[in-house]
């Protein structure tokens, strides 16, 4: 077979990386290339340089170093027993590609992952080598996200953290039994052990920087992880519970959810239908509720239906409100911030605006309408000077009144 061109390799290795959900480039330390020899900057806010027709942000060059793999995880397109085309980049090729894309302002940086070749340590060393060349030889100051391999030695993983803005280890599946079944070569305890080590490295580095100004940074954008939704029998309640334990135990910046999607050359132990994409969306919404709205995991679990899953037709916040109608209506002119955040249809920004504005005027329904996206959604749950939803919250058909009307997807008009 003739040697593959860079273009062919890129096609294979980007294709192989697309099942990773994360492409974030935000929340890292500020840096720029003034006074340096190279290029690159990160200014806090992530930048999406393009959007693919799947609606996902393209912020980083997200590729695998290689999709050869000695592991045989059933949900993974690159598993050993799969028949996909294989390719392998050298570290230098990845470096050149990253810099060429970065100079043209296509990307914020690199997100590098890899199949396991030879063994975990060898693979991890190759990944770290890419980051080293970028940082040390090219003084690259853009964003680098490295996927670390839980089975690799802690010392090499630590190296990765010194070069990268963010490191991540995928927990892959929300339950241990799912992992045993679908990823027979992986071990839940080893994965969590590796996450624990990264966490202590993060804490240590932060502590050192408090005392020594020039102490090296360690993954300033923290660590994240990803769970595949819908490949095993875990319910949303299981997933939310797992996510909140991960947030608590490992101080994760983000838990990403990736709806299991049909992959070429899949294995037969996988489920038969792909989960609705909306399920992933509902999980992200619940993630938001826990991170920004003061919901506890138990609150989110209360919003699930009898089968342990969040309703698909309405968002989890509305689901919670419909279950706890006695908590409403809430008086927007008096209620606390925490109470306002529980009102379906009021976001963090709207609540902030209400709190600021009500110091100046007693809010009427029209005023609230100006501050929110949709007053129809909010109205049944609030009181204003001139509005009280009398019987609305008691109506049995409230859910159907508020659930979004199902729409036919608009055909693409080019």
């Amino acid at each position: 077979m003739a040697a593959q061109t860079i273009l062919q390799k890129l096609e294979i290795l980007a294709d192989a990386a697309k099942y990773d959900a994360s492409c974030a480039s935000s929340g890292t330390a500020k840096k720029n290339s003034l006074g340096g020899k190279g290029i690159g900057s990160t200014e806090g806010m992530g930048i999406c340089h393009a959007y693919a027709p799947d609606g996902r942000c393209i912020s980083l060059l997200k590729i695998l170093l290689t999709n050869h793999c000695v592991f045989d995880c059933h949900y993974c397109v690159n598993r050993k027993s799969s028949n996909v085309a294989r390719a392998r980049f050298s570290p230098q090729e990845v470096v050149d590609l990253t810099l060429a894309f970065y100079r043209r302002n296509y990307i914020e940086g690199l997100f590098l992952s890899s199949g396991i070749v030879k063994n975990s340590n060898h693979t991890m060393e190759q990944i770290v080598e890419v980051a080293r060349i970028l940082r040390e030889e090219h003084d690259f100051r853009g964003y680098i996200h490295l996927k670390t391999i839980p089975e690799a030695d802690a010392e090499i993983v630590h190296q990765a953290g010194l070069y990268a803005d963010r490191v991540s280890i995928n927990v892959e599946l929300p339950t241990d039994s799912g992992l045993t079944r679908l990823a027979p070569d992986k071990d839940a305890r080893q994965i969590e052990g590796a996450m624990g080590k990264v966490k202590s490295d993060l804490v240590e580095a932060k502590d050192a920087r408090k005392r020594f100004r020039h102490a090296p940074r360690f993954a300033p954008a923290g660590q994240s992880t990803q769970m595949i939704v819908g490949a095993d029998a875990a319910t949303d309640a299981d997933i939310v519970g797992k996510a909140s334990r991960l947030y608590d135990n490992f101080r994760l910046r983000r838990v990403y959810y990736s709806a299991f999607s049909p992959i070429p050359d899949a294995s037969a132990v996988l489920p038969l239908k792909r989960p609705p994409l909306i399920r992933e969306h509902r999980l992200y919404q619940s993630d938001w509720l826990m991170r920004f709205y003061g919901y506890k995991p138990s609150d989110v679990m209360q919003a699930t239906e009898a089968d342990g899953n969040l309703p698909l037709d309405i968002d989890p916040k509305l689901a919670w409100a419909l279950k706890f109608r006695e908590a409403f209506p809430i008086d927007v002119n008096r209620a606390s911030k925490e109470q306002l955040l529980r009102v379906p249809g009021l976001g963090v920004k709207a609540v902030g605006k209400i709190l600021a504005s009500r110091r100046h005027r007693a809010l009427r329904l029209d005023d609230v309408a100006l501050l929110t996206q949709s007053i129809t959604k909010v109205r049944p749950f609030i009181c204003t000077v001139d509005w009280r939803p009398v019987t609305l919250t008691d109506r049995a058909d409230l859910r159907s009144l508020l659930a979004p009307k199902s729409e036919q997807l608009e055909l693409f008009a080019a």
Partner: protein
Amino acid sequence: MTALQHVKLGTYYVVHLPEPDDFDFWRERARALVQSDVPPDRIAWVEPGGSGDLFAHGERRMPVPPMDAKPVRANRRFVSLARNAILHSDPERFALLYRLLWRLQSSPRMMEDKADSDVRRVEELDKNVRRDSHKMHAFVRFRLVESEDEEVGEHYVAWFEPEHHILRANAGFFMRRFSNMRWSILTPRGSLHWDGETMSEGPPAERHDAPGGDPMEDLWRTYYASIFNPARLKIGAMLKEMPKKYWKNMPEASLIPELVAGAQGREAKMVEKGALEFEERPDTLAAIDKAIHACRKCPIGSLDNHAVMGEGPQDAALMIVGEQPGDQEDQIGRPFVGPAGQLLDAHLEKTGIDRRAAYVTNAVKHFKYVQRGKRRLHQNPGAKEIDTCRWWIESERAIVKPKLVLAMGASAARGMLGKTVSISKVRGSPIPLEDGSELWVTAHPSYLLRLEGSAREEQARLFDADLAAVKTRLEELA
């Protein structure tokens, strides 16, 4: 009112701004006008290229504020909003900002009132400008111009069409990011040039002043097409963040229509290629029997052979799993009836396990072979074939619910565990399965058939020992 001495009653002031984004100029004029007590409706603000002629009769000289004029008050929130909002292309922005400044003098905390229409409008302008700047950071695409002159080196040039007057305000971002690169950003409102040390501004440019392509764009388009997952088309989400107006200057955007059009076909192909779409699990053994005969999910099913269903009581406590049917099993249609089956029967009898009480089946349902003359030679199933067939063995297990599964050989073990294990390492002790039952692994009887002499004796002994352990365990579980 002292101001009346300085302002001619009814005078209409016209302020010409030197640049559309000159905040400092606006601030200085606005301050003087407020101090001179000129109400908002007596001022016209005219930007370059604006319709200044309408106000030909207005007073162009600025009023002089009285000596005792109060300092103009504006909180930090207003200043930061105004600095950004002034970059907006709305010609009314200067008047809006002045009106706000004017009102702030009597109600200093007005900016907090988010329901006020002026406050809302200025926040909207600010938001639009911030979005436009953000999109500029994101969507500017540089193209490389290689110079003949060695000294000049590489020069990266971009053509961008911002909606608002944001070019100058964003020079810093590109300078900090590409500080060691020579670059230019050309726009219809002006241009920026950075040579690695200094920033200079140039006149408005046109599209053809910028290069028409870059060899790297092929790679970028390849990346864009490959990273897109056709199984999750969400056009609305894409359009919301990357509206069509930006597409014309983004090399990758030309691919979007074909990617979208091809998406459903590609997804269907992915599924078909993986032969993933199994139906619901069959819930009776008879249904499985019927389904496996039609199964063509791996190449073995397409050979000239017949599926062989497991046999035994539906409530058996023991399930024995072999590799795949052999030549005789394929012809007769029952598992373990050939030479290996006879050897198995002998060993089971010796150990005291009743084969009729066990459910006997195979990890792979069809016979895999190669034709050699008249003979069909057995071939080991591949890992992928075993994995594909796990669907059926798992369906059988879900119905029979054995307490103990005995997997004979590496293929059977893989069929149960999903990974390849070494028999010598795992034999002799139970492996817990997800449903609470346990798995024991031993060699396949056909392995014994291939050995001779002392090696065969040794393996037969180990095989018997495994069977004996299974028997003991079964009695414990009963």
